[in-house]
């Protein structure tokens, strides 16, 4: 019985103006987003090729992540170049986007398009599914047939979901095929798995908002009321809650400023240099002088590492609190999930910085050994390995997937319960 109902939903949507608007908007924005982000990636890649370290350069740098075309997240930050020297790590430059407009507005990547535009489109499809049928009188005629309310609701869900995602899937897959022409985008099997997981997250997110739309349409008596409620909920879930909870987390966890940290590092360096000069004894011989300086450099290195550790600990706590609060909105779970799969999330950035710190310590030890023991120092180039999908999954992705699925499930169940009790008269 469900097949004719699903067919009716699809046909009904195809004949409506809202489908034409959503269809054109989805095709246009998805294509535009992927086009713009590809060009942005291309520019950042060109930057990387220009500044990438040569043999012997003590620079930590990694090429832009191809998945940043879909979800840029913190890729620009991960792609910064860090110069390693004996007393510090200096941030030299990032693979900054040439497009200055990004500084004013959120990056128009596919993640953002889905997060904002497709969620709104899903609500536009869902907001009147039940109450409009009741208002226009077709619900009575439908339910006078041997159709259960569960079947009717399921057919609405399936029919609208298919109408919503098919244009998106078409243009998304087409764009992926085009990207495959560029060798920088050739993917390993794990890369394809990541892509599949991202697509699954996109579809789950659309399903979440469609379910919310249908739920409100079963609770509201009038389509206009349903639309107003859903627009408010959309703004709250997509923008207000994530922003407000991030601000709240910043009030709850104190983290020293980056500038303050930098000043402190400089102070430690200056202090130890001055102490080293004061203790300088020309009679101590070359070995003695070197040993004295090494002691001071060790202090600098040790204190700076301790400071960095403390900062990272506090920052990690802030991130943890903020993420927990953000997840009051399932939209946050979606954003974190997609960025984690793309390798552009906050955990990836944190891991990248840890790698840079380790690299710095290896370089420091090599330089010290050279000056103290006269060993020939050879430094391997910095290489960063992104987290594997398994690691990503264990380090939080499973929760975001579960959270999104749970919200969707709850919305579906709630709309089924509400519709079973719905007064069709």
């Amino acid at each position, binding site marked *: *019985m469900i097949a*004719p*109902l699903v067919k*009716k939903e699809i*046909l*009904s949507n195809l*004949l*409506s103006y809202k489908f034409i608007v959503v269809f054109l908007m989805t095709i246009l924005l998805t294509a535009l987003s992927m086009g713009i982000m590809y060009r942005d990636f291309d520019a950042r890649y060109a930057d990387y090729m220009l500044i990438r370290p040569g043999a012997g350069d003590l620079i930590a740098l990694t090429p832009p992540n191809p998945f940043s075309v879909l979800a840029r997240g913190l890729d620009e930050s991960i792609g910064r170049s860090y110069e390693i020297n004996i007393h510090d790590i200096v941030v030299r430059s990032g693979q900054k986007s040439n497009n200055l407009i990004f500084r004013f507005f959120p990056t128009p990547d596919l993640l953002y398009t889905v997060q904002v535009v497709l969620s709104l489109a899903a609500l536009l499809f869902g907001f009147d599914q039940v109450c409009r049928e009741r208002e*226009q*009188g*077709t619900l*009575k*005629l*439908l*339910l*006078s*047939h*041997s*159709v*259960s309310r569960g079947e009717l609701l399921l057919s609405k869900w399936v029919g609208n979901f298919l109408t919503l995602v098919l244009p998106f899937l078409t243009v998304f897959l087409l764009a992926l095929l085009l990207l495959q022409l560029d060798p920088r985008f050739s993917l390993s099997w794990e890369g394809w798995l990541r892509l599949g997981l991202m697509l699954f997250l996109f579809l789950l997110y659309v399903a979440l908002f469609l379910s919310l739309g249908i739920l409100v349409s079963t609770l509201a008596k009038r389509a206009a009321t349903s639309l107003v409620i859903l627009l408010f909920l959309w703004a709250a879930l997509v923008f207000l809650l994530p922003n407000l909870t991030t601000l709240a987390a910043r009030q709850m966890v104190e983290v020293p400023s980056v500038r303050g940290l930098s000043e402190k590092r400089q102070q430690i360096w200056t202090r130890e240099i001055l102490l080293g000069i004061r203790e300088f004894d020309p009679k101590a011989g070359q070995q003695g002088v070197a040993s004295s300086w090494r002691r001071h450099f060790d202090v600098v290195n040790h204190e700076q590492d301790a400071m960095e550790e403390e900062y990272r600990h506090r920052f990690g706590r802030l991130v943890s609190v903020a993420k927990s609060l953000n997840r009051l909105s399932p939209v946050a779970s979606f954003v974190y999930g997609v960025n984690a799969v793309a390798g552009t999330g906050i955990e990836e950035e944190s891991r990248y910085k840890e790698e840079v710190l380790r690299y710095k310590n290896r370089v420091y030890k090599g330089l010290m050994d050279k000056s103290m023991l006269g060993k020939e120092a050879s430094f391997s180039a910095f290489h960063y390995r992104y987290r594997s999908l398994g690691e990503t999954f264990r380090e939080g992705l499973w929760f975001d997937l579960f959270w999104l699925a749970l919200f969707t499930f709850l919305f579906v169940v709630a709309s089924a319960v509400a519709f079973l009790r719905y*007064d*069709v*008269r």
Partner: protein
Amino acid sequence: MISQEIVLEAKDLSKRYEDGQLALDHIHLTLRRGQIYSLLGANGAGKTTTINLFLDFLKPTTGQAFVCGIDVEKEPLEAKKHLAFVSENVMLYGNFTARQNLEFFAKLGGRSLTKEEVYSLLRRVSLQEKAFEQRVKSFSKGMRQKVGLAIAIAKDSDVILLDEPTSGLDPKAAEEFQVILKELRAEGKGILMSTHDIFRAQEVADKVGIMKEGRLVLERSREELYEEDLVKIYLDYMGSPCSMGERGGRA
């Protein structure tokens, strides 16, 4: 020869809403195959509530509603297989044509119709040929009622429930509607029709029931009505306080 089996039955059926209002008060009625039963009564008398209970749109407070012997409350989907419904103001999918609407609802009723069968049904209800492939959002009420009746006919069910189907129709359309009802009766359908139109009820019905304040206060067969003036009885009841059995009423 049409069998006389009961296709629709209300046994001690009552409905009290959550706000305490008693919409239907212990009614009993039966409808046999090949009969038209007209429910008369003022607005709020309980006619539509009775129909809604047979359609499982409402749950009864007491009693049972049966369609072809199937308890509607226990097996609503099974009962609805034997029912078709035409409301006072048939609403269809505006973006679909008359043909598409009919095809869709026929499929819901378990029938796959060919284009010719669809056209033939639409001709039977006297819809103009040029409207077959027109979107129904431009249809008048009369045209929508015709498509609604075609949907009910397409389902080929044992019982047809009509909730004031001719209200607001022009006389010609109402007359066409009545002709089709008689044809359906001749085919052995049981038809329960709520209406305000006393004259048409008297003309077409095999049984007439008058409802007042949720009670079926009077029931008359066609034969009995030959000897009585339905209009007078109806107006008498509408003007009197509700009391079953008064003035010779048997319900």
